[in-house]
Every structure is written in C-alpha cells, then in structure tokens.
C-alpha cells in the first residue's frame, strides 16, 4: 500500500515536471500550430541564463527564474522577427520542422562554444534542496516546488486562453490569418505575444525542470522526443490535455520503471500508442 502511494506520488511529480517543460510547446503547437522543435533549445537557453545568473552573478533562485525567462524571450525575439514570422502564413509542417531543427542546431553549436560541453548547475536555495520528509517517505523538496509551479502555470494559462479574448484572437489568427487581419486583428502582434509566452514558458520549464533534465548543450535535441510526445498525446493546444497527458505518461513511465525497469521505455511508448489509438486527436485535442 505504501509502495503504491509512493509510486503514485513519484508519478505525479514526474508528470508535473513533464508538464512544466512541455507546456510552452503546447502553446506553440496548439495555438500557433508551429511544430517548434527548437522548444528544447529555448528551455536550454533559459537554463544557461539561470545557471549563469546564480553561479556567476550569485543571484537568488527566485530572481534567476524570471530573469531567465525574460532574457530568453529577448534572445528569441530576433528569431521571431526574422524567422518564425515566415512560418505563420504558410504553415507547412515540414518547413517548420526544417527551420526549427536548423535553429536548434545553431543554438546547440553556439551554446557548446560559449558555455562548453559540460553540465551546468542551477544551485537550489537550501529551502528547496535535499529530501523532504512527508511522513511515510522522503521526497525531493524541489519536486514539491515543481508541483506548485505546474499547478499555477496551468491555471494561469487556462485563465488567459479561455477567459480572455486574447485566446480567441490567437486562435482566429492561426485559423485564418488573412481573415483575422480583415477583421482588424493585428496578427503579427498577436503572434509575437504568443511566441513570447511560449518561449517564456519554455525557459521557465527549462529552469524548473533542470533537476531532472540537466542543462547541457545537447539538451535541445536529447529531450525533443519527450516534449513532442507529451504535447501531442494531450492534444495540441489544450492546456488541460497536456496536463492530463503528462500525468498519464508520468504514471506509465514511473510504474513501468518500478515494475520492470529493463522494459521501462516500452511502457512509456506503449502508453503513447494506446492514448493516440483511443483518442486520435489527443486526449483533449480539438478536431481540425
């Protein structure tokens, strides 16, 4: 019984981490319909900045996180203006893949050059590091923090996208950019804003998830598959879907790794196949 509870807890924490690091991609893929393979690259940039800020500048974790998100957005802005903008109008998925892979390679190369090939640490404040005794077992304290961040992010995004007209404008612009313009929606601004949100979330997720997925130059490619899978299984564009998918996949992975570690990957990907087979549009995806 205790083991079951323990596994469930691990699954939840892992799922939440998955959610945190892929929710930015969900925004990008769902709202802007851009399969942004460079998501991991942005998360990585966020991680590097946070690491630099806390290790070299000695800034507090609480300051490093927003700083990382902000700086990553600043770094990514030129990319939006020069490159991403081309994708919005003629959204051919293959072109998107090519461009965003190109961007990923570029960023990996630069990161390797600037920061070197080693892992970078983002030191946790004492209050978030080490194990935390929750009664029947120990839990990494940081996981509790991730849990909180995940819930807050999910809620905030849901409010923004479902409760305000911003969400409607974004989806209208993506659905039919020409027509949205003809209704007075300034699509390029809308795109820009959404892009910034997505990139900010990527960076945020990168920093917060760094305990599990440590920051190094190859980060951008190493975890690409995980991001893609989580978002698509949830149904692109559905924040709740991404949330649910993260949880389910977290559960599949964690139980799989517990019961039969040597077949751990089989559980994860079988769960993916199962989800897609049962919900062809992803768990909560909209039909297009």
């Amino acid at each position, binding site marked *: 019984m205790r083991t079951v509870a323990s596994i469930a807890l691990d699954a939840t924490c892992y799922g939440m981490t998955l959610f945190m690091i892929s929710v930015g991609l969900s925004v990008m893929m769902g709202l802007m319909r851009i399969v942004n393979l460079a998501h991991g690259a942005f998360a990585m940039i966020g991680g590097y900045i946070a690491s630099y800020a806390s290790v070299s500048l000695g800034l507090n974790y609480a300051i490093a996180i927003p700083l990382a998100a902000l700086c990553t957005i600043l770094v990514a802005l030129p990319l939006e203006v020069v490159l991403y903008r081309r994708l919005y109008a003629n959204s051919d998925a293959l072109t998107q893949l090519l461009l965003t892979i190109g961007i990923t390679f570029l960023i990996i190369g630069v990161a390797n050059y600037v920061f070197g090939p080693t892992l970078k640490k983002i030191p946790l404040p004492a209050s978030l590091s080490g194990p935390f005794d929750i009664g029947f077992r120990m839990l990494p304290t940081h996981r509790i923090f991730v849990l909180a961040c995940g819930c807050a992010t999910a809620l905030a995004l849901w409010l923004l996208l479902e409760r305000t007209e911003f969400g*409607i404008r974004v989806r209208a612009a993506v659905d*039919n950019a020409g027509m949205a*313009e*003809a*209704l007075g929606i*300034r699509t390029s601004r809308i795109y820009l804003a959404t892009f910034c949100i997505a990139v900010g979330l990527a960076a945020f997720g990168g920093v917060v998830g760094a305990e599990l997925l440590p920051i190094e130059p190859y980060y951008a490619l190493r975890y690409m598959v995980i991001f893609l899978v989580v978002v698509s299984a949830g149904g692109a564009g559905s924040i709740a879907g991404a949330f649910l998918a993260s949880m389910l996949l977290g559960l599949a992975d964690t139980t799989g790794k517990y019961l039969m570690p040597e077949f751990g990957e089989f559980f994860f990907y079988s769960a993916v196949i199962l989800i897609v087979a049962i919900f062809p549009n992803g768990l909560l995806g909209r039909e297009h």
Partner: protein
Amino acid sequence: MPGGNLEVEDLVAGYGATRVLEGVSMRVAAGERLAVLGRNGVGKTTLLASIMGLTQRHGGAVRIDGQDVSRSSTSDRARKGLGYVPQTRDVFRSLNVEENLVAGLKGKPRDLTRVAYEMFPRLAERHWNLAGQLSGGEQQMLSIARAILGEPTVLLLDEPLEGLAPVICDNLMAALGELSAQRAVTMILVEQQIQRALDFAENAVVLDRGRLVWQGRSADLAASPELVERYLGAASA
C-alpha cells in the same frame, strides 16, 4: 458625418507575379451602394481582396476618406473602417460561433454579439457549435454578422447571398439596406443574382478581364438588355 469614402486609383494587383487587375479606378462616396458585376473569373473577388490589402499590389492606390492606405496592413485598413465578407466565407473553423463573433468585435464589449443573434436567430441556436460544423448557409450568416459587428464604414460583400435560402436573402438585403440608410455605411456588393444586386445598389460597375468596362447607374444597366447581354451574358435578369 462618419467617413466611408473609398477611392481606388489605377489599381494593378494579382497573386504573386500574375496580374489580375489591370488598372481599376473607381470612387465610392460615403453611404453609396455599388454593385460590382462581371462574369466568372474576371477579378471581382480580386478587386475586393485588393481593397482589403490581401493580394499582391503591383501599382495604383487605395484611399479611405482621402487617406492613402496602399501600404497599410490589412488590419489597419480594417481599423480605418473596412469590413469584408469574403466569397469563401472564411469563418474560423476551429472556433465556435460565439468566438467567431467576438473575433470580429474589434475589442468592443462582448455582449454586442447580441446584435448578430438578432439579425440571424439561427446563429443564436448554434452559438456553441464549431464554425466548421455549421451548414453552408449558417457559415455565410456568420461571416456577414461578424463583419457587421465590426461597425465598418465601408462594407465589402463578395456574393453574400450565395447559399442562403431565398427568404433569408430577402431579410438580409433588407437588413443591409437599413444599415446603409441608418448609418450611411458604404457598400460594395459583388453578386451573381444580378437583379437583386441592381435593385439594391444605386450604382454599378462591370468588370471584364481585370478592367472596368462599364460604370453608371444601376437603373441604366437594368433597363438595357443589350448591355447586360454584352457584359454579363444571357443572364436570367
């Protein structure tokens, strides 16, 4: 006096390198109703789309209330008072009816969508539906309602009657008439139902292969079967 003057001067436009409009000039006064007629593929849609800034402009100018908007983005033109009902309706398929209407509101309070529901009660019944699932006629209604909610001073209508039941056509023409009368909205109407178009608009232009070949009063056109025959073919008018 709200604006609504539209001037098109020597407009050359098309798709990519292809030119469809070969120099079109026309002037529509505030509150005027103009019918744009012509056979298939002569460039009527292209003309409206070019006024909206949705095509490739190769030359010429578009002016709204005397202000040159040739280089403005489509959204700026919309904000200057243009409203557009495209031929292909272009509802936002993945948004529901309500959201489609809100997208057209230009930031005005949300409960104004009521206006649209009053105009087309059918939409009110379907307001939770995804627009992509609506019937053809319902999509047409949605497209028109969405444009009207933006309170345009110049409304461009590309075959708005297509796919609508005859009785709805009646109501719509009446509603458009009212709109132009009460708020002096300028209307440019492309329509295949020539008789209806000529009844509605006081002036008309005829396009042929990207050029204006006739302009004048609708009544003159309606009264002259030869003209109709020459420019529009053996129509049922």
